[in-house]
């Protein structure tokens, strides 16, 4: 992957309106900042290469380079990415109660990793009203406080960058596919820095179909909901076609037809539903709201899950084949939509030409995905 600088980042991401505000460029330098769900560049920077560009998941992401660097093999476009095992899971008895979105698997694994010293801090996402806010957490007991889905694009990785500046060396990051992609790029030391430390000890990926733009959601909801009162947001599985907001004074239902137009451009070209570059990925389990889908991807992920299960922190079961099939289909469909959209927009690079796109994937893999 060729690394450019902040000017190219502005051209390729901010001006193309692909920025999803993941926070990968925030807190690296004084120039990029996140405010109210949007990333802004405060002043021009003249460098020809920068961490901002190197980490951004919306500059030209070279899927082959990522796959080779992390998994040791070229990107093959399989629906769920690299998989060791797919399980059904939920928090075990030893995990305290929480306001979990589903089975509490993420909170269980992250607090367990903190307790056992696998990670020295957790990079999580909080919400102030409707605004997602990054949090760096060092107490296992705090982890569950930030559970539940946010649905809005969040600058979570700003906390990772801050944590690295503060001297944390093995942070656990909980992130959406775009954030996990940024972390993956970061871990490959794209600027070939000497004594490089990525500061990451564990990556827990979340499933994500799309997120919505914070400001536009706030504008939509401003007439119907007091953002300070929001307790939980949910999108029940099909065929509900609703976003349900629990305000503490009853539930407000917003038709998804009103929500979909708020999905940022950057989400529409994202080919990853299951956070393929994580150690483990977690999502809901269709038809079973008390359970999660858990994809174990790496050796590190497998060891964590295994130990958590032995300690009673996590409960797992085999994943029914029908669920697995549906997951694959949904994931593949997201890939197809994204690649078609990217090709329509002229930001899909299937050759080695010099133009800067948003995604680079080999032609044969593209054909395989699109069938």
């Amino acid at each position, binding site marked *: 992957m060729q690394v450019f600088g902040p000017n190219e980042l502005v051209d390729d991401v901010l001006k193309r309106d692909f920025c999803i505000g993941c926070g990968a460029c925030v807190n690296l330098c004084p120039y990029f900042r996140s405010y109210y769900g949007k990333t802004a560049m405060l002043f021009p920077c003249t*460098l020809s290469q*920068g961490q901002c560009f190197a980490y951004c998941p919306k500059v030209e992401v070279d899927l082959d380079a990522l796959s080779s660097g992390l998994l040791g093999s070229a990107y093959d476009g399989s629906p769920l990415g690299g998989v060791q095992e797919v399980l059904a899971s939920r928090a075990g008895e030893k995990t305290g109660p929480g306001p979990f979105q589903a089975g509490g698997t993420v909170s269980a694994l992250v607090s367990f990793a903190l307790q056992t010293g696998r990670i020295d801090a957790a990079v999580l996402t909080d919400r102030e009203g409707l605004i997602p806010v990054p949090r760096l957490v060092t107490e296992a007991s705090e982890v569950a406080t930030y559970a539940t889905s946010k649905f809005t694009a969040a600058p979570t990785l700003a906390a990772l960058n801050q944590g690295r500046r503060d001297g944390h060396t093995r942070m656990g990051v909980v992130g959406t596919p775009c954030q996990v992609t940024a972390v993956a790029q970061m871990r490959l030391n794209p600027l070939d820095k000497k004594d490089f430390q990525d500061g990451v000890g564990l990556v827990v990926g979340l499933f994500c179909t799309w997120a919505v733009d914070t400001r536009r959601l706030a504008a939509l909801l401003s007439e119907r909901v007091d953002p300070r009162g929001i307790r939980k947001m949910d999108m029940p599985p099909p065929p509900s076609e609703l976003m349900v907001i629990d305000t503490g004074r009853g539930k407000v239902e917003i038709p998804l037809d009103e929500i979909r137009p708020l999905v940022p451009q950057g989400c529409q070209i994202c080919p990853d539903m299951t956070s393929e570059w994580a150690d483990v990925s977690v999502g809901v389990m269709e038809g079973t709201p008390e359970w999660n889908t858990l994809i174990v991807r790496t050796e590190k992920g497998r060891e964590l899950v295994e130990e958590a299960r032995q300690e009673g922190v996590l409960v797992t079961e085999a994943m029914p084949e029908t669920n697995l099939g549906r997951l694959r289909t949904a994931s593949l469909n997201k890939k197809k939509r994204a690649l078609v959209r990217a090709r329509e927009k002229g930001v899909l690079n299937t050759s080695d030409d010099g133009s800067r796109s948003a995604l680079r994937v080999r032609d044969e893999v593209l054909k395989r995905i699109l069938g």
Partner: protein
Amino acid sequence: MSHLVDGEPGSRHLMMGNEAIARGALEAGVSVAAGYPGTPSSEIIETLAKAAEARGLYVEWSTNEKVALEVAAAASFAGLRGLAVMKQNGVNVASDFLLHLAGSGTRGGMVLIPCDDPGALSSINEGESRHFARLVEVPLLEPGDFQEAKDMVKWAFELSEELQSLVMLRSVTRLSHASGDVTFGALPEGQPQAAFHCDGFVLDANEGAVMSAPVDYKHGQQHDKLKKAEALFETCPFNTYTGPEKPEVLVITSSACNLYSREAIKLLDVEGRVGLLKLGTTWPIPPRLVEKHLGLTDKVLIVEEVVCFLEDQVKILTAELGAQVGVKTFFGKRDGSLPMVGEMNPDHVAAALAKILGVQAESVPEEYAGRAQEAGFVGAPGRELTFCPGCPHRASFWSIHNALELDNRKGFVCGDIGCYTMGVLPAGFSTLKTVHAMGSGTGVASGFGKLGPFGLDQPVLSVCGDSTFFHSAIPALINAVHHKSDITMVLLDNSGTGMTGFQPHPGLPRDALGEDAPAIDPAEVCRAMGARVEIADPFDIETTQQVLLDLLQDRKGVKVLVLRQICALSPEKKGKKLYEMTLDQEVCVGENCGCNRLCTRIFRCPGLVWDHEKQAARLDEVICTGCGVCASICPSGAIQRREVA
């Protein structure tokens, strides 16, 4: 300074033009002087304020120029001599009252001294005040050197009383701010007494009501006064001719252009070929005097600055006198002999004269000019306009800029006149997007704030200095509040009229004479209007940005943020550091990713210097004022601050 009051009649002193003008006013026995600070006029009121106690004057810095003219006029109505002083665009502010004052007539001597700034050396316009004399029909005088600057002021008061009319006396930067020898006259004895007689017959100029109506009658009177002035000007000693009896070219000029013309004639060594008619009375011009000199030659060069004024008058007169003086060839601005814009100088005049006379004009040898240009291009460092080290405006604009970028809705700032005008430049991170007259930032913002229904969804801000707030932003802000305009006004309160030299204003607890005065708090004024008002210290970047972001989210009506921090150059603050600053060059990230010289490339306080050798920033301890702001912006912690006990 003491010679200003104590100088013996007949003694000679080297004086700045503005001091000479002040001395002239003292010799005239002025009782009341009022003005609003503005370069190049400010020293006149400052000098008179210093003499106030010894000479029994009342001197004030008024809220704005219109009020200054009104205050001075009241003295005239009460039989005293009154003086109003302002810079060129101040006359625009005062012009409404000016028109009425010209119509109503005056009693005690009443003189308005505008100081124009051709070439805009200290302005953002090169506006003209001369044309107001013609527009409102009052006599205009223009001193042509430093002695005249003093003498003509005294005469202006006498003329005003003789005509019972306001008299304008116009100076320019090169007269006001340059210095020359001045021989003093005597100061008058005794304290004049004030009384306003207003119970007489309504049309009685000395006992009746003072007003410009009935208009036919008063306007007619005004014309009689101008006729009388014209007659007096025919023999006025401030209109002089120097040169041969039969010159090839007649130069007609006035004001500082008199000095440039004299120098140009000497430079070309053409004293025997060029005649110089210097007019001290430029409106109305004395027709017989000009006619006499027009008769000397057929070639006339008119030398003046900015908009044609003398050239128009002389051409009109020549047309009227066609039968007597014949056809003339005119040179000046309209034929391109002299530039239409910018300041005049001896080189311009010499070039014009050389062309007319067919001689060589080379003020600077070509070879020298070439070498100088080369040396300047290679050797002179780029020195752009910028804020002083420790200037609160730099910190304020930093926060405003950052808040607008973070807010990310293409918000913009409307500004006006003050040091903060430099907010339009990189010094203020190019934050200002409109710059016009005093107080106009808020007026223009008030208008932008009503364009929502037309699709304008960008946040609208204005900035305004503390003196400007009182001068002319208050009506604009009231307009915005009353019309529910959605704007945020940032009041850059640096506790004084900073740009012109810390003259007091109504927000401060002292007046021009140094006496205690009730201070009016702008924040309270804004609250009383119904605006949401927040106050912050611009040196506290974090809080200032937070408050601004919060105000930008508040979409309803007028918000005011008062950023209060005293000017780094103010006498109270100068030399006093808030913090001892240190910069660790080992920690500095320099040009690398993670900083890329934020402090020396973007923030650019002159107290921070890029050390090419060490590839790190360096503190210039000599000029650092210890404001501490750079420690807040340094991303690596290389810059540290320690509070000065």
